[in-house]
Structure formats: structure tokens, C-alpha cells
């Protein structure tokens, strides 16, 4: 033991050792991290600067494309006055919020019951839900189209609000099941003996303790609905009811003509709410992620 400890400590107190250590850390940690950051952030940077460039600067190949010389908000003005972007943004927000709320409500109940209540077939129902999640939307959209048609919901936001839960509920249920399972059963048993009903035990004990998990599930659900493309593309045709991902790609690209300024401005604005949400909940989110990782 002693010899191992000595090996690890090295010869103490020499400046060169400290320097070597720093170089080692740089090679092992900081340089790879910086590379990763550069690769992932570059598209974002490109998107941002492009949206601030004037039309003439956009296609001027004689200057470096990596920064803006004369920033302008023209594209943003254009986006808000000449296109239906404000409608798309509102639609996306409404659809994402409502379908997230519906999915959370169902998933909390389903996840809790699958994790806690002993009833016939609980296990197979749990697996069934998981398998549902594995069915790809590219396959599911066919039957769903008939359902939406029969409900007369084409060109209606409800078409999305009702279909998004088909993938959100399985996902959130599976995730929340893990969280509820990580909460010791005894806490609720103590509450039951203390005079709570099963429902009270759930709302006063299990749900507050699963809150990080519920927030994480909400965040995932919201992001998934915010970025959803396929169902939105199929079920909505009228320009006024489109969501951001579909509106942007359909109406800011005409044939082979790309409206780069508006495209980039719209894409930037489209990613901001999700980014804000993430940074807002990041503490809870990370706690939720790790809790799920260990026990889920």
C-alpha cells in the first residue's frame, strides 16, 4: 500500500511537476473539450451571424464570411412583417405546451401506477408502452392520417396536440417509472400508516420527490414537440396553422431559392425558447438525469 501511495504522489514540490500536470490536463481534458465545443457551436454561430448580415454582405465572397461588418435587423423585421412567422411561433408554443401538459398528466399517473401498484399485467403493460415508443413515426403517420381525417382535424392544431402524445406518453411514462421506482416504497407506506390515502400519498410524497424527474420529462417532451417535423408537415397545410420547423422549411425556401437571411433568423428564434428553458431548469434537469441514470 505504502509504495503505491508514494508512486501516486510523485516527488513533491517541484515546479516542473506542476507544469507537467497542467499540460497533461490540457491534453486530456481542455483540448478535446474545446474541439468538441467548436464543432457543435459553429453551426449556431454561423446561423447567428448570417441572420445579422445585410443582403449585399451575404453574397459578397471577397470578404471573410466569419464575421459581420455591418449588422442589421432587416431579416428579423422582414420575418415578422412579410411572413407568417409570428403565427408559426405561436402555433408551435401552443402545441408544444398543451401536448406536453397532456402527456405529463398521463405519464405521471401511468408511471406511478406501473412503478407502485401491484396489479395483474402491470409488467406486460410496462413493456407494451415501451414497445409503442419503438414504433417509428414514419410508420405510424399512415394510420394516424386516417384518424385525423375521420376526426376532421386537418389543418387544425388539435391534430398535433392529439398525435404528439402518441410518442410523448410512452417516452415520459418509461422515464417517470424509473423515477418513481427510485423513491423508497417505505416513504409512502409511512404516509399510508400516518393516515393518508393512496392518492394523498402520491401527491404529497411521491410527486414532490419525483419533481426533478417530472421536470426532466417535461423538458424532453417540450423539446420533442417543439422540433417535431413529420406530423406537422402531414397534418397541416394552411400557412397560418403551421409550426416553426415546417413553416420555415416550406415557406422560406422556394424551389431552389433559399432566403438565407430569414431562414437563419427564423432558425435562431426557433431555437431560443428551448435553450432558455434548458438553462432555466438546468439544475433540476441535471439532478433528474443522474437520478434516472443510477436507479432508473
Amino acid at each position: 500500500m505504502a509504495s503505491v501511495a508514494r508512486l501516486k504522489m510523485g516527488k513533491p514540490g517541484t515546479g516542473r511537476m506542476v507544469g507537467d500536470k497542467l499540460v497533461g490536463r490540457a491534453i486530456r481534458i481542455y483540448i478535446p473539450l474545446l474541439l468538441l465545443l467548436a464543432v457543435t457551436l459553429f453551426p449556431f454561430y454561423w446561423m447567428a451571424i448570417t441572420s445579422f448580415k445585410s443582403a449585399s454582405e451575404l453574397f459578397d465572397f471577397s470578404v471573410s464570411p466569419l464575421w459581420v461588418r455591418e449588422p442589421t435587423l432587416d431579416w428579423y423585421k422582414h420575418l415578422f412583417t412579410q411572413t407568417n412567422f409570428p403565427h408559426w411561433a405561436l402555433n408551435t408554443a401552443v402545441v408544444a405546451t398543451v401536448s406536453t401538459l397532456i402527456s405529463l398528466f398521463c405519464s405521471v399517473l401511468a408511471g406511478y401506477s406501473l412503478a407502485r401498484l401491484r396489479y395483474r399485467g402491470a409488467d406486460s403493460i410496462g413493456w407494451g408502452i415501451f414497445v409503442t415508443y419503438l414504433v417509428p413515426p414514419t410508420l405510424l403517420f399512415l394510420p394516424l392520417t386516417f384518424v385525423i381525417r375521420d376526426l376532421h382535424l386537418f389543418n387544425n392544431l388539435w391534430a398535433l396536440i392529439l398525435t404528439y402524445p402518441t410518442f410523448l406518453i410512452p417516452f415520459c411514462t418509461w422515464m417517470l417509472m424509473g423515477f418513481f421506482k427510485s423513491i423508497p416504497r417505505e416513504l409512502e407506506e409511512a404516509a399510508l400508516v400516518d393516515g393518508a390515502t393512496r392518492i394523498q400519498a402520491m401527491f404529497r410524497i411521491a410527486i414532490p420527490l419525483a419533481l426533478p424527474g417530472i421536470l426532466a420529462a417535461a423538458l424532453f417532451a417540450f423539446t420533442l414537440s417543439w422540433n417535431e417535423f413529420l406530423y406537422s408537415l402531414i397534418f397541416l397545410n394552411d400557412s397560418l396553422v403551421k409550426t416553426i420547423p415546417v413553416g420555415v422549411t416550406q415557406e422560406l425556401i422556394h424551389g431552389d431559392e433559399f432566403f438565407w437571411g430569414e431562414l437563419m433568423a427564423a432558425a435562431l428564434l426557433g431555437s431560443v425558447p428551448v435553450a432558455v428553458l434548458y438553462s432555466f431548469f438546468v439544475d433540476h434537469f441535471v439532478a433528474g438525469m443522474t437520478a434516472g441514470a443510477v436507479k432508473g
Partner: protein
Amino acid sequence: MASVTYEHVTKKFSADTTAVDDLSLSIKDTEFMVLVGPSGCGKSTALRMLAGLEDITAGQIKIDDQVVNEMPPRDRDVAMVFQSYALYPHMSVFDNMAFGLKMRGSSRTEMDSRVKEAARILRLDQLLARKPRQLSGGQRQRVALGRAIVRQPRAFLLDEPLSNLDAMLRVQTRIELQKMHQRLGTTFIYVTHDQVEAMTMGDRIAVMKDGVLQQVAPPREIYDQPVNMYVAGFIGSPRMNFLPVTVSDHQAKASGLELNLPKAPGVAHGILGIRPEHFLPNVSSDDAVIDLKVEVLEVLGADQYLYGKVGSDDLIARVDPQLKVSVDDRVRLGVNMRRLHLFDAETEKAVF
């Protein structure tokens, strides 16, 4: 305050796992009853059925004269202390203790006075605003007790409440629990695997094994008159010595020992049971004598334990620490004939 009665209670988790097998036990009002046994013996399951946390497969449980089989836990008016304490981590100590009262719709002022009173008794006054994670193990344990006390329930159910405490705190809390029982005058049902806790705290002890109740009796009786080898071996530390003997009439013969039994047992093969503390240092003429070859010595200050062999059988003896012995010595010890036990080798039941 209430009596509790188990009538032929059976709990099966599946067709071939029986946790509790035909348990009949009646616990008197204000009694301190200890259920003791090794892990998996069904003692916790028995307690959880009483609390309403497990269904009862067969038989019935009564609190006072009321059958509670189908009654939800909240209506049974019992309080339970869990081994893990099961404190609500997102609530303060005050809210933890007040939870049961809140669920029963007590007024704010009553809640306040009862929680403060319990906190005073348990020395938690200064900690009421803290969260459970900010407390030490002993403090958490007291909060769990406090949560039970404030409810003023008909019965306290305690499931190994001391096993997460360190040794010193355990002894201290053991004494506090007994004081609490005297002061509250409520029925206590206490589950433990620790025979010392059982012996020191219980008015009566129920020893269980493999879901089957072995014996129910006051501690002294359990110690003096165990009904079978299992109870005899489980209670007492170090455990009772068991020496296989062949019996003919009054004579019992082991590999390194021969003695006259006080009465003819009527079995051919028996197991002689002698507790380590029932050997006599002074050998008189009418006592049976053993010749112990010492292999290991343990001096604990107040006691000295000799581990060795009599003939081919292992044996432990507790002797005066002043007795000068060293390893490989042969020590002559008398057998206290009045404290002798004999078990039927076949059924393991006590003959006397």
C-alpha cells in the same frame, strides 16, 4: 391503547413462499411484545399485515375486538417506525411529525402543541426547521419516533428501529424506548433480530422461525424453559452448548461426559443443552464434571470465555475472569444440574 390478536394468520407471497404460517398470538393492552427471529422468519411481514401494508392470505387480525383484515392502513390508528425511518425528505422535522395530524385534520394549534411536546420529550426542539438530511442518524431516529408519538395511536409498531444506529446509541435508545413505553402506556409491538433487544425490552417475547411461531413467553421463561433447541440456541449469548448424548434410563453419555439425569427422559438419543454460564468452578462430589481442553481464551474484563473440546464435542464455558487458564490447559468444571436442558434428538423439542 388496544389489544391485538392474530388468529391463524397466514401470509403467502406466492404458492410456494409462505412468509407467515398459521400465526396465533394475542397481545395484551399496554404490553411490550417483541417479535424476534432471524431475517426472513416472517416477523416483519406479521407486523406489516397488522399495519395494513400487506394483505392477509388467511386468518384474521383484530385490534381490540374489531377485525381489521380489510381496513385501510389510515383507519387502523396505529403508528409505525420503519428501520430506514422513512422520513419525508422534502419536509422539515416539524412537518414530518405533523404529517399524520394534518392528514387527520387536526387544528393548527393542536398540531403545534403536540409536535412541540413530542419534540421536547425527544430533545428535537432546536431541530424542528431542519430537513432530515441535515440530521444525524440518532436524530433521524428520534424524529421517526416523534412522528409516531404525536399521533397518540392505539398501538406502536416498530420494525427494527435500532438497527441503523451505532452500538452506543442503540443501548441508549433502548432504554429511552422502555421509558417511553412506561410513560405512554400504549401497546408496543417491536420487531427485531437482536436477542439482546428482545430480552431487555419485551414484556413478552415471541420467537419466530421460517414463518412459524416457536414460543411466546416472558424473557425469563424463554431463557429458563425454551421449548425447543431453536429457541434455546437463539436466546442467550454465547449460545447454549449442545452435546449429543445416548440415554439409557437415567444415564446420559456424551463423547467426553457421563452424567445422571434428574429423571428418566424416555428417549434414546438426546441433545444435552448447557448454557456457557451454567458451569461451576468448584466441583463437588455429586455434580457431573467435565474436563475441558481449552483451545481459545477470551477475556472481556467482567467475563472470561473458554472455547474448547470435551471429548469430541465443542463447548464454550463462561468462567470467573480471575481463573488463571492458558491455551491447551485442561480445566475441570462442574455442571449446574438444575440448569440442565435435554432435547429429543429427533424432534428437537425440550424434554426438560
